[in-house]
């Protein structure tokens, strides 16, 4: 039964988005060779365009693609010297090219792929790039565009990382119980970095990069499905849902930045907020709460507040205190200082910000200057405010944020 060309293209695109990771993860296990698996899965998607047009769209596209990619890998190996070593594994029903540690506990191969991509022996930038490339199926050019580096740089980064996986023997498996919590945190960190890279682009004309935020949400949902009892995962998904629920209102007319105080709360995504808030409650019940659970709890206070004026800043400040204890970082301290400014007045906020003035990690961080500018403006210190806004402007690469800061300077008397 032939299918229409449009329907086939849609089905293949859909299978790429939904099933890429599942297919690649399985074929990688069967071949024991990430590069070969990736090439064959790519080819299988190409073959699907022709085969599905002729024979109809299969009921289980992932199974079709996995079988096709496995055959392609077998053909390749037949022609190469590695045949003797790998053929028995591929030929068996589901024998496993890589040693199959504990597959009964972790039946989904995507977790193995994710733990391999996010192995701490790889540089964090490489972990992020590999995750986008191998889990999300993005082309190298798309990964490069998303992370704001040249395609050549990204191609070299991905190649180097894959070589290290093969040469150093980074295993294709879910770590054992002793190392699982820290390794899950490493995976969560990569998804978090992806989301933040998309949430506020480091450069360019657009404030956000929805291609990255959507992928991060997909990955967080996948993690939640595969690791339902983990507090970091629950918190991470909650954080992304609650932050993303506000994404449509973060820019107004012509991509202009809208602060939370000015956002139209009726346009926030209520379904996402409800789902996120329920996850926060669950994540906070697990002790000790993960840093993501605490960040999500802060996002939930904002998301559930009927108006900016009604924001419970005392609660937010208390949550930041817990977060700073759990995750001491200058950026958390900065956000805590801002919350203190709203809870106890701009002078208190400035005092808290002054303590961070010599923090080297914040020296190039535009939000420190922007926060200082804002508190000075509230206190009527117009000259200090102007200087601080100008400092923030120098450090900001994103056009929407630059326009906002320029408007603030112009509005000063």
């Amino acid at each position, binding site marked *: 039964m032939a299918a229409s060309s449009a329907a086939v293209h849609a089905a293949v695109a859909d299978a790429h988005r939904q099933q890429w990771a599942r297919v690649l993860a399985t074929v990688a296990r069967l071949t024991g060779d990430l590069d070969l698996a990736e090439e064959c899965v790519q080819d299988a998607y190409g073959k699907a365009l022709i085969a599905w047009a002729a024979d109809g769209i299969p009921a289980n596209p992932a199974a079709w693609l996995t079988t096709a990619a496995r055959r392609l890998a077998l053909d390749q190996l037949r022609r190469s010297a590695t045949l003797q070593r790998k053929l028995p594994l591929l030929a068996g029903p589901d024998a496993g090219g890589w040693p199959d540690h504990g597959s009964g506990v972790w039946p989904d191969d995507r977790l193995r792929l994710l733990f391999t991509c996010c192995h701490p*022996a790889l540089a964090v930038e490489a972990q992020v790039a590999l995750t986008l490339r191998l889990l999300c199926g993005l082309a190298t050019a798309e990964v490069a565009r998303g992370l704001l580096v040249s395609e050549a740089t990204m191609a070299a980064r991905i190649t180097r990382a894959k070589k290290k996986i093969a040469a*150093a*023997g*980074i*295993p294709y498996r879910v*770590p054992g119980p002793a*190392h699982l919590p820290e390794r899950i945190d490493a995976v969560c960190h990569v998804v978090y970095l992806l989301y933040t890279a998309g949430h506020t682009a480091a450069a360019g004309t657009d404030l956000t990069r929805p291609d990255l935020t959507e992928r991060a949400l997909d990955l967080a949902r996948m993690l939640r499905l595969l690791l339902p009892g983990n507090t970091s995962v629950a918190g991470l998904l909650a954080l992304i849902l609650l932050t993303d629920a506000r994404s449509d209102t973060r820019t107004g007319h012509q991509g202009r930045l809208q602060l939370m105080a000015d956002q139209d709360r009726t346009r926030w995504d209520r379904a996402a907020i409800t789902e996120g808030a329920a996850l926060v409650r669950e994540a906070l019940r697990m002790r000790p709460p993960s840093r993501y659970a605490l960040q999500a709890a802060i996002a939930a206070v904002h998301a559930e507040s009927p108006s900016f004026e009604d924001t419970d800043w005392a609660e937010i400040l208390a949550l930041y205190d817990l977060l700073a204890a759990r995750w001491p970082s200058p950026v958390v301290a900065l956000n805590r200082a801002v919350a203190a400014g709203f809870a106890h007045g701009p002078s208190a906020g400035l005092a808290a910000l002054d303590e961070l003035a010599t923090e080297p990690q914040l020296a190039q961080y535009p939000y420190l200057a922007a926060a200082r500018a804002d508190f000075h403006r509230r206190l009527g210190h117009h000259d200090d405010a102007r200087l601080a806004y100008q400092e923030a402007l120098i450090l900001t690469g994103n056009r929407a944020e630059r326009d906002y800061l320029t408007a603030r300077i112009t509005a000063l008397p």
Partner: protein
Amino acid sequence: MGQYLVLIYEDEAGWQAGGPAVEAGLAAHQAFGEKHKDVLCGGQALQPTSTATSIRDGVVSDGPFVETKEVLGGYYLIEADDLDAALAIAKDVPAPFGGVEVRPVMTTG
């Protein structure tokens, strides 16, 4: 199964100072060797870098190849299934005055 070289980089002053920290370090190496004897293929401590001689382009000169605070002071050659297994063993390598680097040994054929 592959081989990994665990390179021990430490501040030599620590070992030269002697005292209880050095005695504890020596005992820790002894204990490491016994605990992991099944996977150990080799390992030695090296004389200090003051005894090193370098050759570059045929020119012989006094001192180590690269001047750094933490220097190669010894190594273990181990067998492990994969990097995770190698790292688990390498974490047991005593390096009270520095740390270790794990390098897969290149296999041929």
